[in-house]
């Protein structure tokens, strides 16, 4: 289990295991942010508080449950995010107590009566409401800002109708402002917990989620890009029925991610490669990517393809940023570490060479990305995934102090986090593939690396 290079291996492994396990459970129940939360949260929370007393943290848990629990709406995300953070609690009993004290936050997912939700639908669609010939009375899923209903259109298509809670916009904004204020007040007494950064993350995610116009545009763009794709499908958005409050998309029926995990190895390998190509491939290839790789957004469809859902959190890099990112990755893939460092340094995100020297920075980049830089097939086990995430983010990583002083541009930070989320998903699948060859494939630097790669090239040639 233990990693000889790590200073405190046993503890690190246990922390990692705990985090991944909680993330897994949450992924099912919270319309959520499990993986990305586990990843982002670790960046921001542990900080310099290694020596903090467990008692302080438990009191913090109490207050958190107190504060977030009273915000019935979206701001509960804070508690959800924080509860899967490794807060640096030393003893196991204290950790369990921490989880127990935050438990109330998860029971109270806001639920608006179906009648009210249908009323929102009627009102926002007006005459167009007639195009929906039948709709389930009860929701099939509840998210933090809305509920999803299954319905049938007048042309017979089955659709998923995502409806925002009434007045959610001002409510989310109000909750987020309160949350920011409260985090500020709490931070005074709990230095080192860096609640502000976590709150900023919650805010970013929530505000993007509320913006259905932006989501529709992202969704349409992604759908158009992958029509007839051989490895995955994007549900078709029904733009003429979408409004600021409602998103109507084709209904995809398939197995959820946690059942995908139980499939045969070949199925999991296929899924892993598809996930890698969809998220990381697009990130490097076009610079426009979905930054929300988490279990709830991935389905295994009956024809063996994957279905990807939910485009509330998409990122578009500038052409220049995308080019730098590609160049750094290419250099790393060729083993040209110095070029990789120079590019990253010039681009301004490895600024502080005092705290992270050239050799250290290179070692850091290679360790974090090691899983898709090496030659040949590699099975991403949970341990591989954990090591990569831990090196990148955890305070007991030997790079922690150095990397914390570096400034990541927001889009690059999102990209790196997306990669971390992907490797976490691949770790859960235990997927195996020649990752670096696939990377050269999607970068267009080499022949198709796999049958999926060939199929994609054929598809790209005709579409």
């Amino acid at each position, binding site marked *: 289990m233990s990693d000889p290079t790590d200073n405190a291996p046993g503890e690190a492994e246990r922390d990692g295991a705990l985090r991944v396990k909680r993330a897994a459970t949450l992924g099912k129940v919270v319309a959520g942010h499990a993986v990305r939360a586990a990843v982002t949260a670790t960046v921001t929370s542990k900080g310099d508080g290694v020596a903090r007393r467990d008692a302080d943290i438990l009191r913090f848990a109490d207050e958190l449950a*107190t504060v977030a629990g009273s915000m*019935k709406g979206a*701001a509960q995300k804070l508690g959800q995010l924080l509860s899967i953070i490794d807060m640096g609690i030393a003893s196991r009993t204290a950790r369990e107590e921490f989880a127990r004290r935050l438990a109330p936050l998860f029971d109270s997912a806001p639920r608006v009566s179906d009648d009210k939700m249908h009323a929102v639908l009627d009102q926002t669609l007006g005459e167009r409401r007639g195009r929906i010939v039948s709709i389930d009375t009860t929701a099939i899923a509840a998210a933090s800002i809305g509920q999803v209903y299954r319905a049938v259109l007048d042309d017979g298509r089955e659709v998923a109708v995502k409806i925002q809670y009434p007045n959610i916009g001002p409510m989310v904004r109000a909750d987020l402002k309160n949350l*920011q*204020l409260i985090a500020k007040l709490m931070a005074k007494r709990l230095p080192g917990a860096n609640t502000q950064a976590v709150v900023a993350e919650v805010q970013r995610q929530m505000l993007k989620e509320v913006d259905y116009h932006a989501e529709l545009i992202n969704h349409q763009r992604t759908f158009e890009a992958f029509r007839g794709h051989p490895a995955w499908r994007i549900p078709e958005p029904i733009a003429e029925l979408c409004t600021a409050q409602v998103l109507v998309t084709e209904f995809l029926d398939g197995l959820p991610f946690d059942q995908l995990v139980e499939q045969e190895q070949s199925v999991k390998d296929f899924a892993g490669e598809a996930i890698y190509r969809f998220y990381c491939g697009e990130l490097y290839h076009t610079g426009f990517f979905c930054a929300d790789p988490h279990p709830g957004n991935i389905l295994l469809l009956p024809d063996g393809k994957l279905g990807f859902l939910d485009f509330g959190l998409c990122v578009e890099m500038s052409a220049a940023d995308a080019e730098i990112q590609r160049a750094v990755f290419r250099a790393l893939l060729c083993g040209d570490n110095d070029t990789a460092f120079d590019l990253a340094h010039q681009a301004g995100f490895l600024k502080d060479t005092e705290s992270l020297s050239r050799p250290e920075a290179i070692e850091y980049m290679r360790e974090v990305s090691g899983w898709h830089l090496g030659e040949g097939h590699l099975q991403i086990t949970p341990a591989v995934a954990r090591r990569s995430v831990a090196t990148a983010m955890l305070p007991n990583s030997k790079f922690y102090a150095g990397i914390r002083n570096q400034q990541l541009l927001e889009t690059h930070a999102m990209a790196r986090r997306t990669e971390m989320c992907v490797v976490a998903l691949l770790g859960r699948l235990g997927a195996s593939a020649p990752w670096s060859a696939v990377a050269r494939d999607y970068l267009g630097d080499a022949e198709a690396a796999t049958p999926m790669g060939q199929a994609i090239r054929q598809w790209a040639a005709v579409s």
Partner: protein
Amino acid sequence: MVAQVAQGRRSRGRPPVTGLAERRRRQIVDAAFIAFTEHGYEQTSMADIAVLAGMGQGTVYRYVDGKREVLDLVFDYAVERLFESLALDEVLDMIAGIGDVENRNDVIAGMGGRLYGLIDREPGLLKLLSVQSLAADKELKRRVLGIQGIFDSYVRLGLERGRRAGWLIDDPRSHTVLARLLPALILPGLVLSLDGHGSTEFRERFDRAASQLVVGGLLRQGAQFDGTAAPVPSEPVEPPRVPAALFDDRRNALLDAALECFSSSGYNAVGVQEIVEVLGASHGAFYNYYQSKRDLLDALIIRETAVIEAMLPDAGVRLESLADVETALAQGFQHAVQSLAPRLRQLTFMFVEAPGVDAEALRALQRFYQYAATRCEQNVYSVVGADRIAPAIDGEFLGQAFVAMVAAAATLLADGRDSAEEIEECARITARFLLYGLNLAPAA
């Protein structure tokens, strides 16, 4: 938007010195705080704020985007001050370390003292956080309710710790009700501070009464109840009497439409146009009856307070058994809460948002609140008997606390605890709290 909410950053020109920027923003917030608490948000312009802050208007706009952003900053500042003054976390720590009931009482008295002290020192603060913020717009109203929810949660947490420490009755359902009743005891002091007439002497009387009520209830030590309990009255609680329309139907229809619009969108966001649209009527129709939206609000205040007035208790009859007193008080609460239930949303507008419209509206509703409190005070005094009420309980406070507790119980309805059984239970707990304080039972 993201940047604004996340970091409170400006999108406009960035001043060169961060220290200066912080100082300037602070000056703006201080100035706006004074302007808002004195004249209200709607009546204050950015020019007013600039003058008070001693800057040019152009300078102000370098640091903030507009009046709405200033309002959020002022609100943040006020909440920060409130939480600092209350030192809630210290209170919780103290509670956690409490050994016995004596210490508990000290903590409660300390808490009450801090709250009422805040009213003394910063009357504007609570006004801004309550009536003014609730009236501003939907988003800020939500923020107020959110902060209030946090406050309630702290109270619940304190109660939970009290239960663990062994000085509070072990009954989670009564905790839910108590968590609403305790903050309600601030209302009399808050109302006192709103018109700026609260003297220190007044404040101390209220503070003393509030502590006494929480710690031991309103009964004088050794109060005598000789009678045996009368058989449980079998008569059901009377349905609320709503008076017949005070105006002709057209007027009432306009008032109903307006109240509906105000309740859902807020007073400031609604114009005459929206009101007449609900009825499919013309502008002219409106002005046949009312000179303006503000004129209509006056009519609305008169109508709605008349409805409540009809529900106020009459002076009761002195009861000779404690059980009867308890039952009578519980029935009084139950009656009041049930009467409010069907019009909860509209009443919330009338008594929570309308006072923030302007000083005149505030005064009118405040006067009615005091009148209602007096009626309740008379009822409690006659039913319980003045000689049995503890000397520390100020009569005026008691009446106002009674009204505040009815309102607090009504907020439980809004949370969906609105079945007849729940209302009955809530009324029973409230009556016991009034009589016996936190113990919810007669002292042994």
